[in-house]
């Protein structure tokens, strides 16, 4: 465990760690482009130069092992000169693209030039020109002039995605980042390279030119597109989501996430969303008010009594699932509730791998299982609902799983059964085959429009904060379920997620004694007992900054 001093401050690090690690441990900021804590060291940008006593030349802190008694200076005049020089060289051929470059506002080159140099240009010769706006693959556009050849993208793909598509070709200042001719970068983790890119060389085609990052606000969330439940940041402005980035969480996904999770937000903004309730009339489905819709729902469920059933979805939050189960089992007195598990059907998605992607494309299968079990609902609850429907025993059904028909193995059977149910209400985001057969369609808020928790496949419970208000007249699940209860002549259900969570913890034993505070931003497992209560120090600077994901690591 070598002990050394950095800028006069003593620090001890593990054997094998570098001077950079030592400085970071002390909270000392060393600028860098090519270094990334999760990637193998390259040492080519030369920006992290530091002065070490007894070494004749400046040395790169990311490649220099920390040794006992080392004396390191990170802010000496020699170091500052070195930093200014490296930045000058980086900029002599850098194109004047800031006004059209997506990276502006979260650009390492901009930020580090400003903080560590701010020396005016001395370059009056013609800059080296390289191709721009290159289609690197389905998700990424490349600008070779902006590229600083840090090779973070190359290293990431090689190590984490086992993909050798990217590489640097040519010598000297003719070097470019590229793919093999005719073999584009088509990897499910490709967009991580855009996060990693310290400049605007790699840009996401999805996000390109959509929004300047300093307008974006952050909402901490989780990805709901597989049970890995990567921690995310949803970036939005004025009610529209523009981008999803990974949020660093050592317990879950590190600083990475897959492209699916990043891009699936698009439907939330889409025009095709169900924005207001619909009711079936003779001529077909028509838009209506919540009042009318609820009157129909209420009438049906009052009449149905215990011949009511519900189908939830493993995409719902723990709180919504708890409220759902409570509504049917307790409030309506029907044990006919359940959900269709992922493995019961075929759901499309990227194949599971040894990195992040899981086979179960739902975020909360485990939560659903545990909650329904706690409410005494049998494991095969959905099947019971199906059989009851087939037997003509169902008078009212509430479906909160819009993908039901895609999920089940026997679509025809379900369709026949649903036709026999007297009253079917479907809560959904999208119009589809299922909603078209409903008597009432209720617009449901998406995962980004509600607050709640989800349980990962390994039992880790994570919180998701609301990013944008529900579109149109959509209601979040808690609100919707409460309205159903009231319409059915029963008492309203709690609307606030945290309150529901408290009730949930009391009833569902495997949630232990978790609280929202204990879950915090990194999630917690129920077994963690008295979960470490992290006091959050409000960092005025961080909170006030406009845009720029908290998830960005240097």
């Amino acid at each position, binding site marked *: 465990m070598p002990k050394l001093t950095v800028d006069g401050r003593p620090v001890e690090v593990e054997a094998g760690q570098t001077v950079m690690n030592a400085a970071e441990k002390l909270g000392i900021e060393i600028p860098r482009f090519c270094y990334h804590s999760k990637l193998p060291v390259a040492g080519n940008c030369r920006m992290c130069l530091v002065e070490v006593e007894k070494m004749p030349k400046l040395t790169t802190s990311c490649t220099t092992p920390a040794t006992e008694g080392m004396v390191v200076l990170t802010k000496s005049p020699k170091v500052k000169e070195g930093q200014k020089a490296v930045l000058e*060289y980086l900029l002599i051929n850098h194109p004047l693209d800031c006004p059209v470059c997506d990276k502006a506002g979260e650009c390492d080159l901009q930020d580090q030039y400003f903080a560590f140099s701010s020396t005016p240009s001395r370059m009056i010769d013609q800059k080296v020109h390289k191709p721009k706006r290159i289609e690197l693959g389905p998700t990424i556009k490349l600008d070779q002039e902006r590229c600083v050849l840090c090779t973070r993208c190359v290293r990431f793909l090689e190590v984490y995605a086992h993909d050798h598509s990217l590489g640097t070709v040519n010598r000297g200042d003719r070097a470019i980042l590229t793919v*093999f001719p005719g073999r584009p970068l088509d990897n499910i983790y490709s967009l991580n390279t855009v996060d990693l890119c310290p400049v605007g060389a790699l840009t996401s085609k999805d996000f390109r030119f959509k929004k300047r990052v300093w307008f974006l606000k952050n909402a901490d969330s989780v990805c709901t597109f597989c049970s890995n439940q990567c921690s995310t940041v949803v970036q939005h402005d004025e009610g529209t989501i523009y981008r999803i980035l990974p949020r660093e969480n050592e317990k879950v996904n590190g600083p990475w996430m897959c492209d699916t999770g990043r891009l699936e937000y698009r439907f939330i903004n889409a025009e095709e969303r169900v924005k207001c309730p619909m009711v079936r009339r003779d001529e077909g489905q028509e838009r209506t008010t919540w009042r009318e819709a609820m009157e129909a729902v209420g009438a049906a469920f009052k009449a149905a009594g215990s011949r009511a059933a519900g189908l939830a979805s493993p995409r719902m939050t723990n709180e919504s699932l708890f409220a759902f189960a409570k509504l049917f089992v307790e409030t309506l007195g029907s044990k006919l509730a359940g959900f269709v598990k992922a493995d019961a059907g075929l759901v499309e998605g990227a194949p599971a791998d040894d990195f992040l992607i899981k086979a179960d494309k739902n975020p909360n299968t485990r939560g659903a299982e545990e909650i329904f079990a706690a409410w005494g609902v049998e494991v095969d609850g959905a099947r019971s609902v199906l059989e009851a429907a087939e037997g003509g025993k169902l008078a009212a059904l509430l479906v909160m799983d819009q993908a039901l028909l895609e999920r089940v193995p026997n679509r025809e059977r379900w369709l026949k059964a649903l036709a026999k149910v007297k009253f079917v209400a479907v809560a959904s985001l999208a119009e589809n085959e299922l909603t078209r057969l409903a008597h009432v369609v209720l617009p449901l808020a998406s995962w980004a429009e509600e607050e709640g928790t989800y349980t990962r496949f390994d039992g880790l419970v994570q919180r998701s904060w609301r990013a944008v208000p529900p579109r149109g007249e959509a209601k979040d699940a808690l609100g919707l379920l409460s309205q159903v209860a009231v319409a059915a002549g029963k008492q309203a259900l709690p609307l606030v997620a945290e309150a529901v969570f408290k009730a949930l913890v009391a009833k569902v034993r495997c949630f232990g004694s978790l609280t929202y505070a204990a879950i915090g931003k990194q999630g917690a497992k129920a077994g963690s007992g008295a979960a470490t209560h992290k006091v959050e120090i409000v960092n005025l600077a961080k909170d006030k900054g406009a845009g720029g994901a908290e998830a960005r690591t240097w």
Partner: protein
Amino acid sequence: METTRRSDPAPHQGPPPEFSRSAVEEINRLKLRYPTNRAVILPALHIAQREFGWISDEVMALVADVVGVPPMDVFRCVGFYTMYHRRPPGKYDVQVCTNISCCLGGARKVLRKVEEKLGIKSGGKTTDGMFSLQEVECLASCGTAPVVRVNDDFIEDLTPDGIEELLEDLANGGELREKQGIHLRGQGAEPVVSKDLMSEGIRGLEGYRKLGGYQQAERAIKTMQPPDVIELVKKSGLRGRGGAGFPAGMKWGFIPKESAKPKYLCVNADEGEPGTFKDREILERTPHRMLEGIVICCWAVGIHTAYIYIRGEFAKGAVSVQKALDEAYRANLLGRNILGTGFNLEVTLHQGAGAYICGEETGLIESLEGKPGQPRIKPPFPAIVGAFGGPTVVNNVETLAFLPAILEKGPEWFVGLGSPKNSGTRIFCVSGHVARPGLYELGMGVPLRTLIYEHCGGMKNANKFKACFPGGSSSPVLTEADLDVRMDFDSLAAAGSMAGSGGVIVVDESACMVCVAERVAGFYHHESCGQCTPCREGTGWLEKILHRFEERTAHKEDLELLVNAAEGMMGRTICVLADAAAMPVLSIVKKFRKEFEEHLSPGKCEGWGD
């Protein structure tokens, strides 16, 4: 000077390429000689270029498939190494060297003649497909400058008339033949390495053995303990002749005795320092002396696998070395159970493909492993983590060639041949404006004045001495005031320059130092590997600023800018190519500042004296 974009090739014509069976067999044989498939990429690409004439994207994919590596790995090499053609060359690919010594010898006139005669510029091809033209960097033939390479053959001592004649001859169906000039010009009292170079032709195994060849290697293996060999070499004070001058014995001593990973010797035969042309001679004319040195070294350090990394342009040298290897293997001097001693040593010839930076020891190792020759961060040093992860010695050809004689005559003898702490002789490569440029094997302590005025016959046309690069173009220049300096490592370092590779480039009053500086900068710009920021961007910037001086469009502030741009690179990079670019330029600006100031106003300079 790169006129074609290597990542923007010509389109492939015709059906998808297929290797001949013999090519596939050759590639598979090569795979057995390396621990990884990737290391076979460069050799496989040479085979592909032989078969298809050039490397298209389709050929790259084919090579990747046959070698068994991701296509990007092949692309990176093709983009990096300039010998691989990205568009079909002419029947005769004319490569005109326009590096310093050749320019001092009138290469520009030769180039202009070629352009005029063929009607094309560098990077172009005649419409009848007969000739393509390239400007290339130093071909290691500086003593017989100007030099042109046509396909694989060297045509030396050229003049504009000479090249015109050659082109006409080839156009009329004449046969292409290599035409070398006189390389070895002089020796001191006791020639060591150049002992075999006195006679014509190539010293084969039989001839070498007649001189006592391989006796020392046999003696070492049969009677000496490896540590004793190392000790002996340490005592001899032999310092590396590749450029750095690091004590060879000490370097060998860094290799751990025990190692989980195999140990390797990489012979640095990638002679690329402008002004240097001695290793080429040893490789072509007396390869066995080097091979014996290899055996001795490997015995001393406990190495069983050696690679001779030879410069891609040395086609004749490669043939010569391969022949020598075959002879040595047949004579059981290499391979398994050498001379019945139980000592195994496999030596493989590995060709580079056109990159000066592969002469840097870790650049060489990277290239050997089948990657672009981008130098590694040190530490770890090759002695600990080198080729394929194992402890590696990298030694220059000439350095190894001294070993047989040192073992034969003893370390003290070797010390006596040179000056204190700078033992032995070295082969000085003198080029530029001297009467008799060429190779001179002399004791290390020979004064520069003696070298030029006694051995080389003085200045060409009795012109006045202006400046010289004592150790290749990477060395700071010396002026008239320095003529009495001794040409050894320590003396030259004390004089603010370096002995380097022994390439002495002499410049007389007829040349313009601003032009010289610009050409020097251009070389490093071309050769920078591009890995780290200061060198990648700085070498290009340096050339651009110097170009403005050359064109006389520079401003007063540019003098300081030039110095800053050069100094800013130094000491901040992964390897010393940046320093090699900066230091000579800085020394020229410092010692010839007036010429730069003069170039601030319109006018004409002497240029290259042509």
